[in-house]
């Protein structure tokens, strides 16, 4: 990878998966813009978001791939899994079918990413507790049985959204620290960007991170 001055030292790739309409794009939007976009367009193929976060004093850029939920698009969306360090697997707590499909999403996530990919289960739309169709406890149990991290969130109110994205990053970072995630392995989903240039010379902000990183 090209070396150069960056205002972050790692890039983590995330994918967001789950049935159509469970709120994947809204979660992403809430995380990157801190707003609820009720009428955000349904996703065709894939869309993206980025945000720079901080874990243990390290700046990390999240590259988030928000995939389409409709079954018909699976063949294409599967191609976007490659090299994901984190997978957010989302269902809608008010629609049981979206929960029932989790095992098939999990199979895809396991088969198409590397063994160290952190999978985080999100039960979205927690603001709609009155219409709840899936209990917290059963989802929690499912998560434990499958070794997944788990939270109920609301893209609408923002509840727990930040935590889901950040906890995933913390876990990935921990995996790097304890050596279980090999950065040099192909498709690890993590890139280390040593910031060897004087940071002050590079006026912060998103765009400067990408700016002509290679002088070779």
């Amino acid at each position, binding site marked *: 990878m090209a070396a150069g001055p960056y205002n972050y030292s790692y890039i983590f790739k995330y994918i967001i998966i789950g049935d159509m309409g469970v709120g994947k794009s809204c979660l992403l939007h809430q995380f990157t813009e801190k707003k609820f976009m009720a009428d955000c*367009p349904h996703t065709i193929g894939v869309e993206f978001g980025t945000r720079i976060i901080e874990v243990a004093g390290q700046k990390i850029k999240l590259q988030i791939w928000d995939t*389409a939920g409709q079954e018909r698009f699976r063949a294409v969306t599967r191609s976007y899994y490659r090299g994901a360090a984190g997978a957010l697997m989302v269902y809608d707590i008010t629609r049981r079918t979206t929960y029932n499909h989790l095992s098939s999403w999990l199979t895809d996530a396991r088969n198409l990413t590397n063994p160290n990919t952190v999978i985080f289960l999100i039960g979205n739309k927690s603001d709609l507790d009155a219409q709840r169709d899936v209990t917290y406890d059963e989802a929690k149990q499912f998560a434990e049985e499958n070794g997944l991290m788990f939270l109920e969130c609301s893209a609408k109110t923002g509840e727990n959204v930040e935590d889901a994205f950040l906890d995933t990053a913390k876990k990935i970072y921990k995996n790097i620290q304890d050596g279980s995630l090999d950065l040099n392995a192909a498709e690890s989903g993590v890139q280390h960007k040593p910031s060897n240039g004087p940071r002050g010379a590079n006026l912060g902000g998103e765009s400067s991170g990408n700016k002509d990183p290679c002088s070779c």
Partner: protein
Amino acid sequence: MAYKQSDPALKLKVDLKPFEEGLEDWDVSPEPDNSTGKVASFLQNTGLLETLQSTVFNVSKVFNYNKKQVEDNTSRERRPLTDAEFREYLDSVGNLTRDTEFRMHVYQNGVEHSLRKVVWKHLLNVFPREFNGKKRFDYLTKKKEEYSKIRDEWKRLLDSDNCSENVKLVANMVRKDTLRTDRGHPLFSDDSSENVIRLFNLLVTYALTHPSLSYCQGMSDLASPLLLVLEDEAHAYICFCSLMRRLSQNFDLKGLVLNKKFEHLQLLLRRKDPEFFSYLKYQNADDLLFCYRWVLLELKREFPLDNVLTLLEVMWASIPPDYPNMMLGIRLSDLDYEKSSLYMKQANIKKNVLNTAYKKLKRKKLECQDIDGCRSMVEDVKAEEVVPKLPAPDEFGCENPFLLFLCLALLLQQKDVIIKKRMDYNEIAMHYDKFIRSNDVDSVLERARLEYSAYLREQQNGSKKV
């Protein structure tokens, strides 16, 4: 395939005679004396005319496309088709007799907004051929009634207690997506706005009457510009059915046609810009899957909604007309067994004729390819890049070759910055996605037209040699 038969209406004043020999193989017309062959007609029909009329045309210049040229080209003013101009393509009883010239005009200039309502129905092949103004009016009235009947039927069902699960499921799926389609546009912005309801009605009707396809995400994007322009639910539905005659294959579960389109796009990029293609290949991005939405929705989401209307009409005009059945017109439903079986019979006959013609052609092609194939194998060993020939217009892009050139223009627009920043696979995909709903229609169209003319020219020269 859309290029069903050579069509006397396609004959142009300019006699190009691009195929002096071997025409028999192409000719699937029932009236041989009247025909120039479908590809020949096609070549004449589209950008080639512009190419030949331009006195300063120079193939190598177009290949070494540069910015200045586009600027030169853009400086030529393109004035959208006006009502008065459109009337010139009609005869005294309002029959669109000069369809080819009409399409040429639209391909070059687009259409004035107020006229779109009329013109789009023609571009989308809503009317059987040689329908005069009176017949078109009666036909629309009849189709509108037919549509209202189907729609009211499922609406009644949906409100009743004995509504089937399937109908509910479809309605829910469509509702979710219509609430998430083009809501940024003033005409769709209100939840209870008429257009949102119309979009819902149109899509549920289509899904229920086309059970083998049902509803697929993406359809709402294809339908919303139609509603915006036609301002009539039934007319938009008729246009949508007609559009889907060509595009339903994009939603096929096996994705065979979509795969083919990607294969062709790769080929085109590889041929037009080997340098960029090898860069993408090096980054493992040569599958071009980040263009998925572009191809599936024919670029509908890549431009601001108000501007994409021009791009759509120009693109539709680049495709030869494909008139519906003279007796029945557009089929509004697959469930109409009596009518549909009749239609199928006729479609099969046409297909058979086409198949034989294609087979003959393919055999010929294979013979050529065998030689090419051997040569390329030998050269592969020498580690030299042999870029395969581009398919002929009636194969290229599976009925919409011009779309590939529009995609090419979008791809090349970002080439410099992608290479300069040495973007990797992820960054490339993210970079292109940044331009969703905000690309510039005019510059993309200009560049695509240039490249397309060059391709047609090349094809013409190529087939002369054969």
